[in-house]
């Protein structure tokens, strides 16, 4: 009878995951959706702890260990999640994702150990005699995918918080492909190996998968990091689903595959926003392309003009419509609050202010919205790409804050540019463009931006936060 209650717990959990994810995709219900899924997860975890019976009908034991681990994990999780700055969101998501991947990998490793010992006891000559191919597939897929996801997420995490730089060396992709092939071959050898050696081959498989995870993410440039995190997120989902196969657990399977499918689609949507294919992101890194194809932009290296703070303040104060284009530079400078102050000040003076948000502005789609929401910027001031491009036609002043590639006209008119075809914000349609940057250095993607050399454009150099603060003071004194 108890087992039936657990089944109901799992059904409830599976349904809440689906409904939760559905609610998460609409602004009005998103927060409740998250809580619904969390509640379902709680039911599933509590149900598993107290009601689970194995094949022989024995309940779980080792309760002190389980609870100790749950408490340790919960405390670290809550503290980390509460303390993280909003600008550091992407690396936090990447970190938690890595933890999930590691968890899935560990489960598979332990499960392999059980199967291996059982086969040893039975004195099978070959490992394959003791295990069904499907079961082995679930074990080995779970451990490989989990390991890749863990190692990759950790590298992505380290890269985003600045501990690692991009590492690109010759024939990197060939080496990566060879390693990946090696992982698969080792996994197959393990299955057919003489039983006494199967465990060594399995360990080698996992170690090589970890190495692959590291090498797979190392060359990928910062601009593509969101795509990679999203992809690794869906990997972890699939790894969790493998665990569902191992324990014939439908809640794990539902949650895992749901995230695997949704994450894959999200990854593709992000690639589409940048007009790049997934293979392009994974195999052709931006940096490598730039050296071969980036040099032939016509006006690159021409002259640009600078604008002083007081002139910029004047122009904005007497404009009737100002559009702010925030980019990652704004996030780095932690300037979202100052930016909101400037917006309020201008509105008080009768200037209409909007924010033009490119889908891939920041380091993750929607990242800018989260940042601006943190600074209390009103929701209806945030314009999405198409709305923004319409509004830009009637805009007097565009203030580009630490954005670069998303306003690069090369995406429209230079077929040899790596970002050619990516939809951009047409800031040129506005009467004046003011660009705040720290220096003339190219942006994230390492591509020169013609926009800066156009007669309409003036450059306002300096740290985003300081420049905004100076603008506010200047406008106040006008």
């Amino acid at each position: 009878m108890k087992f039936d209650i657990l089944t109901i717990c799992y059904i409830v959990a599976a349904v809440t995951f689906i409904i939760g994810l559905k609610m998460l995709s609409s602004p009005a219900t998103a927060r409740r959706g998250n809580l619904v899924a969390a509640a379902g997860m709680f039911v599933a975890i509590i149900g598993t702890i107290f009601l689970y019976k194995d094949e022989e009908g024995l309940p779980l034991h080792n309760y002190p260990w389980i609870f100790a681990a749950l408490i340790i994990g919960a405390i670290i999780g809550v503290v980390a999640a509460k303390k993280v700055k909003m600008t550091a969101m992407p690396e936090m998501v990447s970190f938690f994702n890595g933890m999930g991947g590691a968890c899935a990998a560990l489960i598979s490793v332990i499960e392999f150990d059980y199967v291996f010992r059982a086969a040893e006891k039975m004195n099978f000559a070959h490992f394959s005699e003791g295990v069904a191919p499907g079961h082995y597939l679930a074990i080995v897929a779970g451990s490989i995918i989990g390991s890749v996801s863990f190692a990759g997420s950790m590298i992505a995490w380290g890269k985003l918080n600045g501990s690692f730089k991009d590492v690109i060396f010759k024939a990197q992709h060939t080496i990566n492909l060879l390693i990946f092939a090696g992982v698969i071959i080792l996994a197959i050898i393990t299955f057919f190996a003489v039983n006494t050696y199967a465990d060594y081959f399995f360990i080698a498989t996992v170690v090589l998968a970890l190495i692959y995870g590291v090498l797979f993410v190392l060359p990928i440039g910062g601009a593509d990091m969101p795509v990679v995190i999203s992809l690794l997120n869906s990997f972890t989902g699939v790894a969790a689903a493998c665990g569902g196969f191992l324990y014939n657990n439908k809640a794990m399977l539902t949650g895992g595959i749901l995230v695997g499918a949704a994450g894959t689609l999200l990854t593709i949507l992000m690639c589409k926003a940048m007009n790049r294919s997934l293979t392009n992101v994974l195999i052709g890194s931006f940096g490598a392309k730039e050296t071969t194809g980036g040099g032939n932009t016509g006006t690159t290296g021409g002259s640009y003009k600078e604008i002083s703070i007081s002139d910029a303040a004047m122009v904005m104060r007497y404009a009737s419509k100002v559009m702010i284009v925030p980019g990652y530079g704004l996030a780095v400078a932690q300037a979202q609050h100052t930016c909101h102050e400037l917006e309020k000040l201008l509105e008080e003076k009768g200037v209409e202010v909007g924010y033009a948000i490119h889908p891939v502005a920041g380091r993750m789609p929607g990242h800018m919205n989260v940042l601006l929401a943190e600074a209390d910027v009103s929701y209806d001031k945030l314009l999405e790409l198409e709305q923004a491009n319409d509004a830009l036609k009637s805009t007097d002043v565009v203030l580009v804050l630490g954005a670069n590639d998303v306003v690069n006209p090369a995406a429209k008119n230079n077929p040899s540019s790596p970002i050619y075809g990516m939809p951009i914000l047409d800031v040129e349609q506005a009467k004046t463009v003011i660009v705040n940057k720290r220096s003339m250095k190219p942006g994230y993607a390492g591509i020169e931006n013609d926009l800066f050399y156009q007669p309409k454009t003036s450059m306002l150099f300096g740290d985003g936060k300081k420049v905004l603060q100076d603008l506010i003071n200047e406008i106040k004194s006008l």
Partner: protein
Amino acid sequence: MEATLQWISANQQMIYIVILMIFLGIEIIGRVPSVLHTPLMSGANAIHGVVIIGAIIVMGRASEHNYLALVLGFLAVILGTLNVVGGFVVTDRMLEMFKKKK
């Protein structure tokens, strides 16, 4: 070959779930506005933390003398909890900010 077929028929329910969930996952995400992409990714990240169930089962079944399973299982439960709890809390924090607009 026979073993594979046997495994498929033994797990047919699971295979149905996989197929249906792939389509469902794609359907659900298809209409999400880009403003919600980050919270959605974070929420999905928390949901795959369901892998913790597997970790709990492994831990709870490990015999007292199987130190490998005990130690790795213990670690797995900690990491899984981190994924679940951290994931949901961070998502909630993000969405809390969206709410303030009213």
